[in-house]
């Protein structure tokens, strides 16, 4: 089963993927990267190094599709979940060729994934920042909720403005599953795990 992590640039997708994998008990990240020519590469990284290498403050750090496979143990059952990190989707048409191509790949993956985790930066809502809420998020909510189990993860709840932001998100996306999390402090990860297991196909 694959969970596709989507969202605006800089809303914390990569950090979420790495930290959530660590939360699920992963010691070493085995990355499967599909670059824009469709070539798949494998890479092994210790967690700390993965965090340093994959996560950055600059938007559009992730430009390939990166998957991490993790075992979830519930009782005696093994569930293997594939967390797939994608490039940040923007409202405007991006000027760089390869980023546009990466976006197309992310959207392509979206059409046949088995679960969508949509990250929203709850602390930047209403601000004029690339990661704040926009048309893309609404279009995503409308589309993704019809094709697969879909949850909105309101990220960066450790920040000051996030609480008000979460209320705005709840208002705007009424009827969707909304889970407040912090990819940094790992708050709410248990709820995400519950959500994933509950919607196991």
């Amino acid at each position, binding site marked *: 089963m694959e969970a596709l992590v989507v969202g605006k640039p800089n809303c914390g997708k990569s950090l979420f993927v790495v930290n959530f994998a660590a939360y699920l008990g992963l010691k070493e990240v085995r990355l499967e990267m599909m670059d824009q020519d*469709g070539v798949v590469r494998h890479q092994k990284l210790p967690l700390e190094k993965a965090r340093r290498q994959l996560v950055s403050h600059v938007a559009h750090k992730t430009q390939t599709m990166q998957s991490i496979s993790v075992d979830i143990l519930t009782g005696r059952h093994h569930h293997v979940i594939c967390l797939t990190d994608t490039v940040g*989707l*923007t*409202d*405007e*048409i*991006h*000027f760089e*060729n390869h980023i*546009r*191509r990466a*976006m*197309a*790949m992310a*959207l*392509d993956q*979206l*059409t046949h994934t088995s679960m969508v985790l949509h990250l929203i930066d709850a602390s930047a809502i209403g601000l004029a920042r690339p990661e704040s809420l*926009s*048309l*893309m998020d*609404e*279009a*995503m909510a*409308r*589309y993704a909720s*019809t*094709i697969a189990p879909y949850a909105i993860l309101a990220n960066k709840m450790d920040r000051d403005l996030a609480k008000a932001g979460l209320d705005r998100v709840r208002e705007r996306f009424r009827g969707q599953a909304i889970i407040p999390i912090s990819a940094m402090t790992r708050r709410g990860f248990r709820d995400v795990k519950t959500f994933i297991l509950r919607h196991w196909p």
Partner: protein
Amino acid sequence: MSLRTNPSGTVSSNPKTPREVLYWVEHGRISSDAALRHLSQLDRRSASAAATEGKANHTSQKDRADEVLRQLDQLVGLSGVKLLVREIRAFIEVQQRRLDFHLPQDTQMLHMVFQGAPGTGKTTVARLLGQLFEALGVLPKGHLVEVERADLVGEYIGHTAQKTREVIKRSLGGIMFVDEAYSLARGGEKDFGKEAIDTLVKAMEDYRGEFLLILAGYPHEMAWFMSTNPGLLSRFPIHLEFPDYNAQELLEIGRAMLAAGQYVLTKEAEQGFLKHLEDRQGNWHTNAGNARMIRNILEHAVRRQAVRLAGHLDAVTRHDLTQLTWADLEGGL
């Protein structure tokens, strides 16, 4: 994966296939939010192609609701309950129809209180209601989570709310059935049961329409329970009475129970049994158990029949194996 070739090759105002949408994104003609909108539109178009399939699905939904009602009708007695369930069903269907005409929906709370002595069918009806609501699309899952005081009330301060919330989480999408709910308020001022009630009342607002709460218990105790918390009575608009069964109904229940195991009462046994039930009617102990009592009596009779037949097993016919005589019954009464 290759997204480099334009499938249509022509310039049109809207992409025709998902692949074309992706191609447009890649070549900077549309942004990702527009792409998502196009994708969902294309999705809907393919969805309308499968509309006939959806229609079939709809009728099967109606069939399932009918099936549940049929099962309900098979229960003996309970005429008030059956009437109310039909009311609720009609209400829900009319609401869905109203939605088709863009009329405002009445968001009625369907939380319920079941009052009745033990063994009058409260749990059975709750389970059927879960299936019915699932069939009608009111509850996504329609499962029944049966809880009692021990599942809700914790051992130390703060534990109760946590425990209760966990149970609520489990019952989202279905029905939470609190048996002997009055016991939550029994312990007095300092009891943790109050905290459980408060958490439940709060959850009813927080998860409006996501789960259904049914409180069940004996009539006297429930009336007292509802008076302990001012918010309770108004939050449970539907009160269902499960009256005690009369002798005739009890006999019918017994017959149905036996029929499931291919047993039959002889004529003599039936008459004796009915007379026994009629004599005692109104004088049962309040917690005698109604249908459950009948089950116990009949199970005892089946055991006595086995003893009677075990002596001459070789000469036993199929007919003998199915008959319960008055002698079998009498010993258990």
